[in-house]
C-alpha cells in the first residue's frame, strides 16, 4: 500500500476550500481546459484507463458508461449528477459538495464535454439544504468565471448546470427514479431497457454519475488514467471515501485507496471499535443495503469491490456501519426493514408487497411474537423479491435480512423461541 494519497479530500482542510478562489489556487479548472484540448474519445479513454467504478453503489465502470452514449442520436444529451445521497450510513458526497464543490463542477464540465451534453443537473437530496446553497454559490462563481455557460474557457463549448433538490425519497437515488423525479413526475424507477444512455432525461441520451465519481475525474485528467489505475488494487482502482459510523471511536469520512484491509481502516483511521476489536460483532460494509459481515470475516477482508462481493456482501456506497456486541441484530435489521418498507415506491408487486411483509414479520419477531417458520419465511420472501423487481430497491431490502440471518441465525432463533433479545 502506497502512502496516503488524497484526491477528493486534498483541499478540504484549507480555509474556504469551497470557494472558487481557493480551488483555483491549486490548479483548479486547469483540467477542464486540458480535457477540452483533447478529443472527446481521448477523454473517455483516459477515464476508461483509470478503471474508476461508479461510486454510488453499483460499481459500474464510469468510462464504459460514458462510451454508451450514442454519437448519432440527434436529441439533446444530458449529464446528471446523482447527489441524492440517501443510503443509510452514507455521508461522503455531502463532504465533497460542502468542502470542494468546484471539484465536482469541474468533473461535470469534463464529463459533459466527453459525452457531448450541453445541459446538466445536480439532483441533490432535499435534506442537504446547506450543501445546495454552497453548490448554488459555486455554480454562480463558475458561471461568472466562464467555467460554465456558453463558450467555456473561450471555446465554442456550452454546458449549463442547474441544481434540482429532491423531495426526500430514497428511491430517487435510483437513476431512473431520479430521472422521473427530475422530470416532475412521481419518483418511480423506469423499466430497463431502454437504459438512460439511450432514452433518459426528457427522452434524450443521459449519463448519470455519482458525486464522488464525477469529482474524481479532474485528477484522472491531471495525472492520467494509468496513474489512477495504479492506485488501489486490480479491478478496484483509485481512492474511495468511506463513511464509517456506528461503534467506532472516530466516526467520519476517510479517503483511502481501495483494497485496504477493513481492520486497518477501522483501527487506524476510525479510532478502532468501541471496547477494542474483539468487541466487534459485525460490519455492514457498504450502506444499509449490503449484507452484514460477521467479525471473523471482518478480520481479514479487504475493502475492494471483488473482495467484499466474495465475502457475500457488497462495497456499495462505502458506508460502513460498525456494530459492537451490544447490538441486537434482530432489532437493527427490524429498523432497516421498516426503512425499506417506507421507501419502496410501491410500483412493482414483489417490492411493494414483499417489503411490507418482511417488515411486519421482523416487527413481530422483535416484539416477541415470532413463530416457528418465520425465519425460513423471511428467506423465502426474500427469494421471491430478489431479481424480480424493476429496480434494485427490492434486492436492497432483502440484503440486510438475508445477510443477517445467514450470519446470525442463532440470534433470530433465540428471539423467536424466547420472545426477547439474546443481548442486553
Amino acid at each position, binding site marked *: 500500500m502506497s502512502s496516503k494519497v488524497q484526491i477528493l479530500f486534498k483541499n478540504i482542510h484549507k480555509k474556504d476550500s469551497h470557494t472558487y478562489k481557493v480551488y483555483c489556487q491549486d490548479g483548479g479548472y486547469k483540467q477542464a481546459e486540458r480535457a477540452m484540448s483533447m478529443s472527446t474519445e481521448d477523454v473517455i479513454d483516459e477515464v476508461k484507463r483509470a478503471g474508476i467504478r461508479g461510486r454510488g453503489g453499483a460499481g459500474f465502470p464510469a468510462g464504459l458508461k460514458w462510451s454508451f452514449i450514442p454519437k448519432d442520436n440527434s436529441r439533446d444529451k444530458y449529464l446528471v449528477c446523482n447527489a441524492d445521497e440517501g443510503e443509510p450510513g452514507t455521508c461522503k458526497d455531502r463532504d465533497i459538495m460542502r468542502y470542494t464543490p468546484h471539484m465536482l463542477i469541474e468533473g461535470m464540465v469534463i464529463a459533459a464535454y466527453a459525452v457531448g451534453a450541453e445541459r446538466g443537473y445536480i439532483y441533490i437530496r432535499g435534506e442537504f439544504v446547506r450543501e445546495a446553497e454552497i453548490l448554488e454559490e459555486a455554480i454562480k462563481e463558475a458561471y461568472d468565471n466562464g467555467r460554465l455557460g456558453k463558450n467555456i474557457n473561450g471555446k465554442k463549448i456550452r454546458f449549463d448546470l442547474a441544481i434540482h433538490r429532491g423531495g426526500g425519497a430514497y428511491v430517487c437515488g435510483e437513476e431512473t427514479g431520479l430521472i422521473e423525479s427530475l422530470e416532475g413526475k*412521481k419518483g418511480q424507477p423506469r*423499466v430497463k*431497457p431502454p437504459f438512460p444512455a439511450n432514452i433518459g432525461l426528457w427522452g434524450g441520451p443521459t449519463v448519470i454519475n455519482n458525486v464522488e465519481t464525477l469529482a474524481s475525474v479532474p485528477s484522472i485528467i491531471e495525472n492520467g488514467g494509468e496513474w489512477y489505475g495504479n492506485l488501489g488494487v486490480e479491478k478496484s482502482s483509485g481512492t474511495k471515501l468511506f463513511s464509517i459510523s456506528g461503534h467506532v471511536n472516530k466516526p467520519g469520512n476517510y479517503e483511502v485507496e481501495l483494497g485496504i484491509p477493513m481492520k486497518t481502516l477501522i483501527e487506524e483511521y476510525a479510532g478502532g471499535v468501541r471496547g477494542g476489536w474483539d468487541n466487534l460483532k459485525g460490519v455492514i460494509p457498504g450502506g444499509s443495503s449490503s449484507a452484514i459481515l460477521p467479525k471473523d470475516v471482518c478480520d481479514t477482508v479487504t475493502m475492494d469491490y471483488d473482495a467484499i462481493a466474495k465475502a457475500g456482501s457488497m462495497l456499495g456506497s462505502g458506508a460502513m456501519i460498525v456494530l459492537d456486541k451490544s447490538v441486537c441484530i434482530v432489532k437493527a435489521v427490524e429498523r432497516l426493514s421498516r426503512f425499506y418498507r417506507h421507501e*419502496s415506491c*410501491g410500483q412493482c*408487486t414483489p417490492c411493494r408487497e414483499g*417489503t411490507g411483509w418482511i417488515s*411486519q*414479520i421482523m416487527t413481530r419477531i422483535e416484539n416477541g411474537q415470532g413463530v416457528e417458520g418465520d425465519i425460513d*419465511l423471511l428467506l423465502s420472501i426474500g427469494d421471491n423479491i430478489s431479481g424480480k423487481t424493476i429496480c434494485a430497491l427490492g434486492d436492497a431490502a432483502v440484503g440486510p435480512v438475508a445477510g443477517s440471518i445467514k450470519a446470525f441465525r442463532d440470534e433470530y432463533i433465540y428471539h423467536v423461541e424466547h420472545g426477547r433479545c439474546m443481548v442486553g
Partner: protein
Amino acid sequence: MPTLIIDGKEISVKPGATIMEAAKQLGVYIPHFCYHPKLAISGNCRMCLVEVEKMPRPVISCAMPVNDGMVVSTNSEMVTEARKGVMEFLLINHPLDCPVCDQGGECSLQDLAMKYGPDRSRYREEKRQFPNYDLGPLIETEMNRCIQCTRCIRFSTEVAGVEEMGAVGRGDHMKVGPYVEKLTLTSEMAGNIAESCPVGALNLKPFHFQARGWELKNADGICDLCSVGCQTSNDYLDNTIKRVMSRECDEINLSWLCNKGRFAYDGLTANRLEQPSVKDEPGTISWQSAMDRAAELIKGVKPDEVAGIADPSGHGAEELYAFQDFLRNAVGTGNIDHRTRIQDFSGDTVKLTRADLMMNTSLADMATADAAFLIGCDPRFETPLLNLRLRQASLEGARMFSLNPRQLNTNLEGLKQSVVHPGGEIEFLNAVLAGFDKADAKSEAGQIATALKASERPVILLGDYANYHPDAESIRRLAVAITGKASALNGKWNGFNRVASRGNSAAAQDLGVVPHRGAGYKSLDSSGKNSLEIFKAAASGEIKVLLLLGGDPATDAIDSQLVKTALDKAQVIYIGTHTNQSSKNADVILAGLALGEKESTITNCEGRVQRGQKAVNGPIESKEQWRILRALSDRFSQPLSYNNIEALRLAMANADHRYDLSELYANEIAPACDHSPVTTGLEAANGKKAKGGMTLVVEASFYQDSSVAKNSSTLALLVDGSSVQINPEDAALQSIADGQKVRLISGEKNVEIKAKIDKKVPKGVIFGQFGSTEGLVQDLYNWEEGFPQISIVAL
C-alpha cells in the same frame, strides 16, 4: 426480422417487438395483469416474467424487446417459481372476496390464482385496507381489490387525456384513485377504466350486482349512437342487456368505448312503444288493423302528398333501404330525407359522390396524420373514438388547428383554436386558402396554411357545426380546395373528411334516404322534396301524410316550430321505438325494434359496413321495421319484393355493392373509405355575414343525441339539465347570474331557459342544445334564415 425460439417453437417477428407480442403471435399465452396491448408498457405486475437463455434473472416479457437468436422459456421451473412468488404477493393483501365481486368468473387474478396461487396463505399479518371513492354515476370502487397495475391511470392520462386517476403514497400504501375522496369523472371515456381493470377494484356501477360474468351471453353489436360504429359486446341475461363491453378492433375502437356507447343500454327498455296503436281508438289494436289504417291514410292522398323522414340512428341499413324502397316504389313518392338539421341543401344540386360525404382517411390512418384542421368540428363530443385517433396523432407531434364558433374543451395536445363569429367561417377559410400562395405568418389563417402546406399527411375534418351551417356547401367546397392545396388529394393520401356524427347516417346516404338520389348513388329523373321542403309543405297542407321512421324531429330538427306545425297539420304514421314529442300525436303508431333487438347493418363515418347481432327480444308486440314496411307494402299494388332479411340484403347489395358482406370471412372487416375521389373544382359562394346582435348556435347534446341515449337514465345523470351557455360579459350586461332563468327572444318567438355562464363562449354568441327538455332553443330558428339573431333578458 429477428427470429427467436419460444418454448421450443421458432418465430420471426417485426423488429422492436416484445417477447410478449412474439408469444402472442405464436399462440403462447403469457400471464399478465398490468400489460394491456393498447396501453403503454408499465412492467409493474411482474407476472409475465420469462426465462431467457444467458440472462441471469427472469425478465418481463411485456417490456423486453426480442433479439435475434433469443431462446425464451415461458414455463421453466424458474419462471413458474417466480410467478408463484408474484402471485402470493398479489394475494396477501387481496380480500379474496370473489363470491361477492362483480369481476368474479372473469377475473385475471382469480384465473391465474388457480394456476399459480398457493392453496393456503403464509400471510399472518393484518390485511391492508383502502378507502373507496365516489367517482360519480358510472364507476363503483372496491379499492381493497386493487393490485396497483395502473391500467386505469395509464388509460386516463394517455388515452383519455385527463389526469383524473393517479397513485398516491408509496410502498404497500400506494393508493390508486382520483387523488381526492369524491370526484365525478369527467372523461367521456371513463367507463373504460372499469373494463380494463383486471380485478374487481373498478366496476361498472350500472352493472353492479346485476349478473355474474358466467351467466351472461354475448352478442356482437355495432354501436350506432355516433357514426364511428364501435364494435361492442352486448352482454345479456334473461332477455335484458346487462352491460355493453368493447370488442378489440384495431381498425375502429381499439379496446375502448365512450360512455354513451357503453352506458346507454338502459334506454332500450324505457318509454318504449310496445304495440301498434291508432289515434282515438283506445285499447289494443291488432297489427292488421293498424296497418290497414296506415295504408288507408297513405292511399287516401296523392303519392306526392306523402313524405318520409327517417332517423338513421337506431335503424339498420336494411330498414333504411326498405324505407326508401317503400316510399319510392310502393307509394310512388320521392319526398324522402333523413337530414333534419341541415340548413344548406345546395349541395344536392351538384352530384356529390360518396367521398364528398364521408371520411376519406381511415380511423387508423388518422392517428398517423402529421397535421389536422378541424372545421366546425368538436370530435371529442361528436365522435369520441375518432377524437382518440386525433389525440394519438397530436401526441406524436401532429400540428393541430381548429376553427369553431367557440373554444373547444379538447384533449388534443397543442390544438391551436381559432374562433370566429358564426358566419365568419367563409372569410377565414378563404384566408387559409390564400395563405397557401402567400402566407401571412402573423395571422391564424396564415399559420394554418403554412402548417398544412408543410405537412405530408394532413387531415381536414368537417364536423357537425360545419355540416349544419347555413353555408355548409360553401364551407365544404372551401375545405376541399384547402385539402387539395395541402396536397392531400394526391391519390396516395386523401385527407378530406366530412364527419356526420349521427349514427348510421352514412347508410342513409348510401341507400338513397335523400330526395335527390336513389340507393347506391343512382341518379333520379326528378328529385323529391328535401326535409325542409317536406316540413314546409306539410305545414302549409300541401303534404298530407308524413311517414316517420323513428327519431323525434319535433325536438331534434333545426326548426322545431315548423316541424311541430307540420306534425300537427299532417297525418302522421310513426314507425318507431320510443315515445316522444313526434310520436305523441301520431295517427298511427307501428312499434318497431331498437338496435340490439335485431340484426342490423351499420355503416360508419369511414363508410365501413358492419353487421351487428341481435342480443335480446324487444317488446313482444313490436316488429323489425323492415317487416312492418314489407307488410304495409302488401296493401299497395307494388309490394316490396323481399320476404326475408336475406332477400332484402341481396336487394340492398345489388343497389350498392359495399353492402355485400357475403365475401367476408369470420372476423374479417369490410374496408373503410372504399369510394371515389372527392369532387373538386366547384367554386365556393360568398358566405352570408351574420347580422348584429346576439347569435344563437344549437349543438347536439353528446349524451342525449338518439332515442336510446335520450331515454337512458344512466346517461341522464351525466347531463346537467337544459341550459344555454353565455359569455360572462354578455351576461353581465343583462345582469344575468349563473344558473338564472332567461328569456331568449327572436322576432315573435321566445324561449325560457336557464343560462350558464361560460368563459369559453365568445362574446355575442349563445349556445344551446338540440332536444333540451326545458326550453327548446330551436324554436327560435327559422330554417331558411340561418343563425337567429336574438336578444336575451333575465327573468
